[in-house]
């Protein structure tokens, strides 16, 4: 399975959404931290794709999985704004575990 790419993507996007503080009321001090974590997680999802799909298929597979995770986040965010980004840490943990499987 290559679910870890999507999990990293969801966690990354969730942090970017927190970092913008528009849909989610994040404290200003926390925003820049969330943004940095968000970008790092997006980078992690790319590295995971590279690891899983090899250099040739990594880019299309990464973009596809990242897009779907973004759509999923936006759908959840539009209905349950507070709960959408809450599970980003467990998701990152599961994704990390999947990387080493």
């Amino acid at each position, binding site marked *: 399975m*290559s679910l870890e790419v999507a999990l990293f993507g969801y966690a990354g996007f969730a942090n*970017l*959404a927190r970092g913008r503080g*528009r849909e989610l009321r994040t404290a200003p001090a926390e925003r820049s931290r969330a943004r940095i974590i968000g970008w790092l997680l997006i980078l992690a999802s790319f590295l995971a794709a590279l690891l899983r799909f090899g250099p040739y*298929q990594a880019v299309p*597979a990464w973009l596809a999985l990242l897009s779907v995770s973004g*759509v999923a986040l936006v759908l959840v965010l539009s209905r349950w704004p507070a709960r959408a980004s809450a599970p980003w840490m467990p998701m990152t943990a599961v994704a990390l575990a999947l990387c080493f499987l």
Partner: protein
Amino acid sequence: MKGNGVRQSMAWIHGWLGLLAGWILFAMFVTGTASYFRPEITRWMQPEYRPRPVGNAEAARTAVAWLQKNAPHDEQWTIYLPNDRTLATRVFTRARPSPDPKAPRPPRRPETRLDPATGVPVEARETRGGEFFYRFHFQLQLPHPWGRWLAGLCAMFMLGAILSGVITHKRIFADFFTLRWSKGRRSWLDAHNVSAVLALPYHAMITYTGLITLVAMYTPWPILANYAQPAAFSASLYADTASQKASGQPGRLADIGRLVEAASAEWQGARVSRIIIGNPDDASSTVTLLRSSDDRLNARSASITYAGVSGERLSASPPLGPAIETAGVMLGLHLGWFAGPLLRWVCFLLGLTGCAMVATGLVLWAVKRRKPGAKPFFGLSLVDRLNIGAIACLPAGMAAFLLANRLLPPMLASRADLEVSAMFWTWFGLAGLSLLRPARRAWIETLAFSALLFAAIPIVDLVTIGGGAFDGFFLAFDGTMVLLAAVLGFAAWRLARRPVDAARPRRRVSLAVSEVREAMDVA
């Protein structure tokens, strides 16, 4: 058109390009998305066919045995070997051209599907299966070449709409995660933006690679300008090795299974996907084996050619040049054959996102022009009705296609065509009937009807094939139908609820700001 800025011009172009091609694009997106599961749809549509899986070499042997019995003197045989997804061996043959040089070249005979284990034609209900959606996706059920031309034109419109849409949308990053429900026009714009922006790489890729796939047909002039014969162009691209002249001496093919194993070993265990045998009954017969491209982006694969009688290795395809390699990768990206199960589902979901983008765009065009209380002008009513016919009625047609497969007697003559007719009669019939109802009710009722038809598929499946439906594959397929029914039912239910946006009081401070923003975005 308001103002003369680049954004306004682009918004105007975006609106009209999207509208004019939108209805056909929606049908192309929906059937194209279904085509990610082309072999699975075919498999579902022939429930009685459950062959014993055999190895590639064995499948090749049984296919050749059948061909030697049924088309021994043909000029060329093409054999598509089965894999995990396509269960049958598919064979095509082409008759020897008549000695008269003026006679037209004989066409490829229709496909025969063989059981890989026994080598006899598959005995199952006649159906076009997933192949129908795949063909419709780029031929639109129109005579050749008009369907492909129209599909290409719509793809050009789509590409233009994507580019102009990106330029128009000035708040791509600000609105990246913004989706607000129950706010009328604002919600449609949000939904259109989100479905377009989040999957933008996919939309751009699928539109561009779709166009490039048929580029030699859309613009043949560069080839005509550089090659005296179009055949010389394809020969220089593909290094056509299989078209050797027949010697006139009879010959018998060597064991094909051994060649399949040899080629597979040479490709480090990669599968052979296709076999082309030239002059099969001749002493100078050739056997060309093509490598499967299931594991790589490039859909055009390497090949090895053997002498048919001696089994001697004659040649292998040279490494691909950069142009054909690029074309192959683009085709591969479009077809998505490289995608494993998870990635295929992801592509399917992205395809659905594309459907949502086109649908919300079409609805948005109408919503923007609707004035509360005023009677809609003719163009607006027309767009509204076409939107209902395309967006809400097409799914009903596709469900009817699948239902007809189960409900028509399996042995009925020309049932494959009847299944196709069932789709179009349901689609256009429902669209016609919806004209009798007010637009709002028509939306709700056609969406609910589509949802009902999809929900009926698992039930009809269970009733008609009985215990056979309790197989992992059939359960998964029927489960997907239930999910699609749920999505359509959700859309009908949302529409049936009274809109709440007008009643909700807004905060005073943000009112002016949001009004201005809205006006700018919608313009």
